[in-house]
């Protein structure tokens, strides 16, 4: 048990670093999902199943979905602008 916990703590420390150092938000959304899973595993190892469950639903479902949607909006907006520039009528698509 101790070994498992120690390994998870160490992995988590690395995972946090990985999240921070991933500068591309799209990739980061995925890394943070993995990081959330690691956290949930640690919580199970620390005998906190309630927290682990909500961690899973929040960190691997709710938050990445919001990030991806926000990114979709932002990139979509960029595409629209590009389209508008390219199409002579100025009407998006």
């Amino acid at each position, binding site marked *: 048990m101790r070994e498992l916990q*120690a390994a998870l*703590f160490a992995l988590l420390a690395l995972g946090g670093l990985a999240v921070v150092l991933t500068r591309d*938000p799209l990739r980061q959304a995925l890394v943070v999902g993995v*990081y959330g899973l690691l956290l949930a595993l*640690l919580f199970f190892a620390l005998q*906190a199943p309630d927290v682990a469950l909500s961690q899973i639903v*929040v960190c691997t479902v709710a*938050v990445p979905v919001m990030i991806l949607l926000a990114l979709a909006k932002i990139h979509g*907006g960029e595409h629209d602008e590009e389209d508008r520039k390219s199409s002579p009528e100025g009407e998006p698509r």
Partner: protein
Amino acid sequence: MSALAYGTAGWLFLVGLYGIVTSRNLIHMVICLTVVQSSTYVLLLSIGYRSGAAAPVFADIPPGSRAVDPIVQALTLTDVVVEATVVALMLALAVQAHKRFGTLDPNELTPLRG
């Protein structure tokens, strides 16, 4: 083991702050903020852990037997919800900021200076 557990919490706090300070993208910054917040979960749950104890669910174990601290778990649950809301609000702000400024780089947001 204590050093590793509490140290991880402190490390995550500082690493998240490092990410925020060096961030060039608001969405990246928001995610780094969740790393800072996750340090509080790790700290709370590490404090409440008791060696060899079971989860505080007395359906599986007899009442009154050795269990880890349920209070910190309840606090962490509250904290997790706070994370979700803060992320939602900040992402909304980031989306709007992108609409107005055309950039997500906090260094290029200029209207408020001095």
